[in-house]
């Protein structure tokens, strides 16, 4: 009912992924991995989670850092939102993600919360998911049985649930290098102007042809309007092979408003969320176009 002090637990600080997996193996169902802790510690204070063992991933250096290479960029799951916000490469090449981390929570939380943690919490309004999905990111999951890499699109299975198995660790997020004539953006509608959960979040990533006229690829994703963040292929299809303008964007946006499946809750109604999806989709497409064409 009310927030309490933290329940007691044993705290473990492995320094490698292997060690972390071993610890989790040993403590079975009574263990939880902890990254930034900004979601888990609150859940524990509310007694929604009462693990006997907390296995901290903070000491696992291999899970940290932003590493660009020829194929794109790899972001360690333990990288904080603030580190991504400050990253030059993200600010230059992965604008949809930069937009998202800049409007998440407060600076006091962004300095603690990790990108991996945001994904693993798997709340429908998680701001990092739509842009990463639009950027065609994949996630590397490491477990006792080995590692697997899956597209982020297939990661979420419902509110607060994902394909991540209880002993698995989300280790890394890879984003392919965006080609020329491409960009993206993330727009978020909140009640307040900061420090608020998304009523609706829309990410758009577009790639134009070499003349920067015709849209060759489009990835549009929506947050907070379905049990999981969703990609809307019907909207994308409306954009591809067309010269993007207000009318095209508007038509695509209308489809987005119909494709989303939001709920009514105390933050906003279903109808309002659908309207907002339409508005934000159009704006995200136009903003992305502007970013490409300058």
């Amino acid at each position, binding site marked *: 009912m009310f*927030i309490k002090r933290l329940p007691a637990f044993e705290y473990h600080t492995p320094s490698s992924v292997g060690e972390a997996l071993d610890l989790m193996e040993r403590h079975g169902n009574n263990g939880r991995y902890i990254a930034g802790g900004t979601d888990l510690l609150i859940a524990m204070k509310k007694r929604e989670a009462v693990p006997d063992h907390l296995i901290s991933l903070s000491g696992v250096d291999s899970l940290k850092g932003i590493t660009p290479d020829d194929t794109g960029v790899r972001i360690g799951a333990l990288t904080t939102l603030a580190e991504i916000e400050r990253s030059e490469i993200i600010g230059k090449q992965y604008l949809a993600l930069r937009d998202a981390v800049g409007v998440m929570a407060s600076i006091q939380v962004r300095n*603690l919360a990790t990108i991996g943690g945001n994904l693993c919490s798997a709340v429908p309004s998680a701001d990092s998911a739509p842009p990463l999905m639009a950027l065609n990111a994949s996630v590397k999951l490491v477990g006792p049985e080995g590692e697997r890499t899956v597209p982020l699109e297939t990661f979420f299975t419902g509110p607060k649930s994902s394909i991540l198995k209880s002993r698995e660790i989300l280790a890394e997020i890879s984003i392919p290098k965006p080609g020329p004539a491409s960009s993206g953006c993330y727009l978020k509608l909140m009640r307040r102007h900061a420090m608020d959960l998304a009523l609706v979040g829309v990410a758009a990533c577009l790639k134009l042809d070499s003349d920067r006229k015709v849209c060759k690829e489009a990835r549009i994703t929506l947050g907070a309007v379905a049990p999981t963040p969703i990609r809307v292929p019907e909207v994308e299809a409306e954009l591809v092979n067309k010269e993007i303008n207000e009318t095209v964007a508007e038509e695509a946006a209308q489809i987005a408003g119909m494709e989303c499946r939001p709920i009514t809750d105390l933050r906003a109604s279903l109808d309002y969320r659908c309207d907002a999806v339409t508005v934000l989709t159009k704006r995200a497409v136009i903003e992305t176009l502007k970013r490409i064409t300058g």
Partner: protein
Amino acid sequence: MKQDIVLKVNGTTYTVNVESHRTLVEVLRDTLGLTGTKKSCNEGECGACTVLMDGKPVASCLVLAVAAQGKEITTIEGLAAGVKLHPVQEAFVKHTAIQCGFCTPGMVLTTKALLDENPDPTTREARRAISGNLCRCTGYQQIVDAMMAAAATMKKEMSS
């Protein structure tokens, strides 16, 4: 289970014997007696418990004390040099940016971190920086005025 942990706070190294489930704000306030760090929501929504960890503002209610080992922690008590206030503190005093004072330690520390990273913020950036620190008294205008004034002073001090 209690354990010895080593915390470096305001340049002083402390060894304290605390349970692993103690948050940093609890240890700062209850164990070290550094009550300048305030506690209100306990869920990272108000900014009252803001401290600097390696120079960056964090919600100390969302940090385990054991996890703060090895970090340089700065609380409001560590900002002034004796009676000489930090320029941010001086600006808050001069610009009447303080009313009830409960949000003030968090506001001041967040401002310090902003100016260390961005010495020349716009008012928009200043407002954004403190958007995680709730204040009910002031309407924020004089806090923003103080932030801008502190930036100007610190820049002048840097160049001289």
